[in-house]
């Protein structure tokens, strides 16, 4: 355990030390590159006055709702497309084209349509999550060995049994790969929405810090976002460890 985390711990310490020394001796002003210590102080303050927990909670809500919505739609649509070549032929041009539009570009539109509340962020987040999960669902379901369908059919299994006993477990590795990407992207989705227009959330905090030349605050917001992304990533990894044990090695 310690052995595993020692390298990352040491590199983090070295990074922080280098950063601290840089700000100390380079003469870069604090509002351009704050020292790690000032970021830390700002962090403590933001926690104590409740602003950081509050805005983190808002962003986290958007991310979780967006992620769930995106994954839900992507899984259902992905499964249907994987099963029907015709539907895929009809729909895939639209899906690919929709990916050519950067979500960042339509985010303002969505905010106008859906107002500046939490809903627009959830939708943007879901849109960004949708595609990687969709693609991996299709690939995963398509990759289910036909021999296993033969096996289930020779046992006169029902559609539901084939779904739960073959398709879900067989496509899970690829699906979780997509979820891993989607989970990381979901953080970006929520922030993009908040940067367009928001009264709350980490994106709002970030912008506020920016306007007020409170650069340490910007850093606090950024690091919190990184932490959220890492936690989501970690959760997917936990799922993988739990459900893909048979694959390890």
């Amino acid at each position, binding site marked *: 355990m310690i052995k595993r985390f020692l390298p990352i711990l040491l590199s983090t310490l070295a990074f922080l030390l280098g950063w601290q020394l840089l700000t100390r001796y380079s003469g870069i002003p604090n509002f351009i590159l704050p020292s790690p210590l000032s970021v830390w102080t700002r962090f403590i303050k933001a926690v104590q006055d409740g602003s950081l927990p509050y805005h983190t909670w808002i962003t986290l809500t958007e991310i979780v709702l967006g992620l769930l919505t995106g994954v839900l739609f992507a899984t259902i649509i992905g499964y249907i497309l994987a099963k029907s070549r015709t539907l895929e032929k009809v729909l895939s041009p639209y899906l690919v084209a929709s990916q050519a539009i950067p979500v960042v570009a339509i985010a303002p539109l969505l905010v106008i349509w859906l107002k500046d509340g939490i809903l627009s962020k959830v939708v943007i987040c879901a849109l960004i999550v949708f595609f990687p999960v969709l693609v991996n669902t299709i690939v995963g379901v398509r990759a289910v060995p036909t021999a296993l369908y*033969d096996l289930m059919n*020779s046992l006169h299994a029902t559609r539901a049994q084939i779904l739960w006993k073959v398709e879900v477990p067989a496509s899970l590795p690829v699906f979780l790969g997509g979820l891993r990407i989607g989970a990381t992207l979901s953080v970006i989705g929520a922030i993009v929405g908040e940067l367009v227009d928001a009264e709350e959330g980490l994106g709002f905090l970030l912008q506020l810090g920016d306007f007020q030349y409170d650069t340490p605050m910007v850093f606090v917001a950024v690091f919190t976002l990184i932490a959220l992304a890492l936690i989501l990533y970690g959760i997917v990894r936990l799922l993988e460890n739990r459900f893909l044990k048979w694959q390890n090695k």
Partner: protein
Amino acid sequence: MGEAISCQLAGIASPGGAPPRNDTNKTMSHTPILTIRNLSTVFPDENGGLRALRDVTFDVHPREFICVLGPSGSGKTTLLRILAGLIKPTSGSFKFGHGEQPSTGMVFQQANLMPWRTVIENIKLPLEVKNINDAVARAKAREMIELVGLQGFEDSLPRDLSGGMAQRVAIARALIHDPDLLLLDEPFGSLDALTRERMWTELSRIWQARQKTVIMVTHSINESLFLADRVLVLTQRPGKIKMDVEVDLPRPRKDDIRYTPHFGKLARKLREAIE
């Protein structure tokens, strides 16, 4: 005489259940459990279709053990897949005695295990599909594990099994729900000679003890003569029945039966048919 022995061998026969078989005297007068008429299969390909089976016609009687021999690509697997209801023949028909597909146990040419399931979970799959209580299913699966000699590997994953062990799991899985019809596609292909012969004995025992009809694809003449009531030989692709041989060797068949003149005569006949 043969009756008494086969009865004893049938250790797992239900008491007073299956009447003793009289294998040397094949009357098979009852109606066939399966009638196959003019089955042909053409797989679509670039040059007008690949003919895999041509005009295959035969009857299967209840509790008959049929082996299918034939060169590679002669459509043996295709035939089993049709009978399992996995693909439709291009033309021709097959009908089961009772009208509908009997409960079927299939062993595929490749073990075809689910890599995410342990040995015991793989074996109990057919019972799960039938929604049988899990404790019952596990207990039954343990019995099957014993039957195929995989004690100690209950919780192993397929990736940790040898080819022969995986095949034995597949055999256990095909038998666990006590199907009426067994479709076996070279089930013992990857077993070593000793295990293979043990599995022959086990399979004859199970087949004699329970009312099963078996259609088994094999490449081994010896195997077919040890096990079958009847051997069908297919021609080169497209497979057509070239020979339909009654194996009238007395049962139970022990290892030394292969040194009897009659065995030798049948073996020669089959070898000539296969070329």
